[in-house]
């Protein structure tokens, strides 16, 4: 059979045909559009509906935003300019309110000639968080991070430089006790001393010492009262302090909740559930209305400090729950392996358990931070001027009575940038720390 067949074939091709180009509707943009937008009747409907939504939103927003007026001293003038340019009845944004009032939205009522201080503080803050956030930054920079809180405090509030320096001294004392005294008196006693002695120092010696130093060499900036701060400066101060303080507290609470010790466990559970069960607003009102009941008569401390404490406790409870999830997700073998290595509790937590548990809980922790930052707007209800509160006080002036959307857009965009970049950072971190193969 094969012989006959071989003889009947007149022509056998001995080279391959060139590959043909795929059909036009199977390549490039056309294919992408067919597959992604018009692959079935439901998809076509959805696409058309979405296109209509996009058109409806943009056709209203874009002309309004792009026609906006950037230079006017008040709303009436702004509207006159709009009517002159585009005819009466045209709706256009009055961005002039931002050019006119942006310092207020950002700094609140901070003295104008001192704006360099918060700006410098912000730059130092960026330099301080860089080594914490990105491992590519030289490790030496961590010293900047350690010193930054004191410098930032001094720059923003002003006053004598000796206050922060005297406060740092407390930490130095604690460190010195841990390092030099521990070998002689035993670790446990050293730890207790390292907590008690600095506390005693801060409560009793620190104040008079810094006063004495200030009277000898007065190194001071003009003091600025808390009431003068507002806008995004205030939101950032509260947000950043809350974030920095609540993470360690939250981890401790989570460990307490996982603990076998009955009293520690129950106390942590009660604390977490009570804090989480009540809205932040109620806690803020408690801070502003009730704190005076709970403290010795005559105590009166800064409202912003109270708010920072409340916000810290609040988000610490949430972080504790997130971290507890991470701790619970670890296989029991990890705990047993750490014990088998002979590590004590704190070492096993620090070296084995927490690095893994925290890695799992990164998204939750960052979400809590984002929530905390957004919640800083609630301080408006107890009389601090956050950006939204400032927007209504700008609206209350005769110049800008009736400006809504421009301010909302600006504030919303600022918050969006902050929070969105935090979210992106958390994704970056997750990717960086991912160990398993995918």
């Amino acid at each position, binding site marked *: 059979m094969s012989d006959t067949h071989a003889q009947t074939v007149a022509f056998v091709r001995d080279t391959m045909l060139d590959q043909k180009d795929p059909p036009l509707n199977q390549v490039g943009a056309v294919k992408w559009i067919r597959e992604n937008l018009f692959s079935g009747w439901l998809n076509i409907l959805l696409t058309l509906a979405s296109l209509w939504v*996009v058109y409806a939103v943009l056709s209203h927003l874009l002309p309004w935003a792009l026609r906006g007026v950037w230079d006017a001293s008040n709303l009436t003038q702004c509207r006159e300019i709009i009517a002159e340019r585009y005819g009466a009845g045209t709706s256009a944004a009055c961005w002039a309110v931002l050019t006119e009032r942006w310092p207020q939205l950002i700094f609140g009522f901070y003295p104008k000639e001192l704006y360099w201080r918060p700006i410098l503080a912000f730059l130092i803050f960026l330099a301080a968080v860089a080594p914490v956030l990105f491992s590519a930054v030289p490790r030496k920079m961590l010293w900047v991070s350690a010193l930054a809180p004191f410098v930032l405090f001094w720059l923003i509030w002003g006053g004598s430089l000796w206050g922060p320096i005297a406060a740092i001294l407390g930490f130095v004392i604690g460190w010195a006790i841990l390092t030099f005294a521990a070998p002689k008196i035993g670790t446990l006693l050293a730890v207790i001393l390292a907590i008690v002695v600095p506390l005693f120092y801060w409560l009793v010696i620190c104040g008079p010492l810094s006063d004495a130093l200030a009277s000898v060499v007065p190194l001071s900036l003009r003091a600025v009262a808390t009431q003068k701060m507002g806008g995004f400066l205030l939101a950032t101060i509260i947000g950043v302090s809350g974030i920095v303080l609540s993470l360690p507290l939250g981890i401790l609470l989570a460990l307490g909740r996982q603990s076998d*010790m*009955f009293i*520690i466990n129950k106390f942590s559970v009660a604390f977490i559930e009570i804090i989480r069960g009540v*809205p932040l607003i109620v806690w803020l*009102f*408690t801070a502003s209305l009730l704190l005076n*009941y709970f403290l010795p008569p005559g105590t009166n401390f800064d409202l912003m400090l109270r708010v920072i404490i409340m916000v810290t406790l609040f988000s610490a409870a949430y972080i504790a729950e997130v971290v507890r999830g991470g701790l619970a997700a670890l296989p029991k073998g990890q705990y047993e392996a750490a014990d088998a290595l002979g590590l004590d509790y704190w070492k096993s937590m620090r070296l084995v358990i927490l690095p893994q548990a925290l890695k799992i809980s990164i998204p939750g922790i960052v979400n809590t931070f984002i929530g905390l930052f957004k919640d800083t707007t609630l301080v408006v209800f107890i009389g601090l001027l956050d950006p939204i509160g400032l927007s209504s006080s700008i609206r209350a002036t005769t110049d800008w009575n009736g400006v809504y959307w421009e301010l909302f857009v600006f504030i919303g965009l600022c918050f969006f940038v902050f*929070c969105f970049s935090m979210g992106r950072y958390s994704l970056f971190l997750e990717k960086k720390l991912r160990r398993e193969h995918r």
Partner: protein
Amino acid sequence: MATISDPPERGFRLNQLIFDTRYRSMTIQVVAMILIGLLLSWLISNTIHNLEALGKDFDFGFLSQPAGYDINQQLIDYNNQMTHGRAALVGILNTLLVAVLGCALATVLGVVAGVLRLSNNWIVSRLAAVYVEGFRNVPLLLWIVLIFALMTESMPSPRDFRGEDGSSMLLGESVAITNRGVYIPNVVFSRSLGGNEVAAPEAPAAAAATPGTNMAGTYGASRIATGGAGVQTGQANAPDASGGDAGGAAAAGGEVIPTSSGWDWLLILAVVIAGVFGAKVLGKRAAHIQEATGKRPMTLPLQIAAILVPLIVVLVALGASLDKPELGGFNFDGGVHLRNSLIALWLALSLYTGAFIAEIVRGGILAISKGQTEAAYALGLRPGTTMNLVILPQALRVIIPPLISQFLNLTKNSSLAIAVGYMDVRSTLGGITINQTGRELEGMLLLGLFYLVLSLLISGVMNVYNSSVKLKER
């Protein structure tokens, strides 16, 4: 055999309390206990001293004193002669109302957005992503204030509805969106169980419909409220909430005035529940027959009928009719008036929480591996059945716990009502009552307790659910 295992008995020495791990945890706990006790007693003694210094006592008697302020949205009968306790109850109901409405809408929005974000359609998934990221990354307070401003500034005022070329009502002249709020029709009954001529308590599902005099005076609205809703101080409001119905029904002439009472709605609710139960029984019977004979009888029309027929019968028996809002002198009369504060709070809470729920739903669906779908197809299940029997039960296990905690967040966030002057429990019990009686300590304590009990109840229910759907392992 245990000859060498026990250490020699040397009696208890004091340093074992610190260095022996058997006793150390005891020591730590006792120290912690003492510290906590000291802290608490310090706080309590401070409080007692401070209260004494202010000449106050710790007493909840103020709850039975007359409140003396009006509340602009009441689900139950209330006037300013009633007690602070009653006012707190009205506030609690308002909180629960906006929480329930918000949870319902947020679930719908979240599920839709979550599914759309997974869509293969590029533009649809991008739009859903924009919605989710936009709402998640901007403070809720800003959304509330923004939507409130949108309602009060950009909507037509009631007088714009007069004449031909003005604004028009939606849905067959029954819904009016104005800058004073949204007016929707109310269902009223000409043979109401609560009696028709006498003033009947408000229907539970309907927001209070006080007539249009309640913009009289405002105080207590928060500093950032953009105007409008606040607390009535004037005495001019109608003596009873049913006054609004009376105005709308005047056109009906000398007939009985249609009205609605809680009993009507209870009856309807009972009939609907019974109908759903009946439909379930029908479904079970069908499953039984299918098991026995292999043939499934037609059930869907029967099930629908089991729910709808009794409902229609009851509605006809009660003489139900729609009480549409009509343009009166300066405002709309009749129907239900949903205030701007309620609308703004409701929409903002739902949109904001919906964005979070969308992420939860997306995560839940993604968490089910593709192998599950393929396995179901390999068993010969159809796509609908696969979704119902294989995917959803597994996805719901992932979705429900965070979903409930979002519901809790929404309920707690409803205390932002202060921004728009919505009279929730924080504004009544935690706001005006505290201001009037000067009982901050007791008021805040009760307020905190309310939220705490609510959270604990819901998370208790959630724990029961969690343990019931937990993967049954060894």
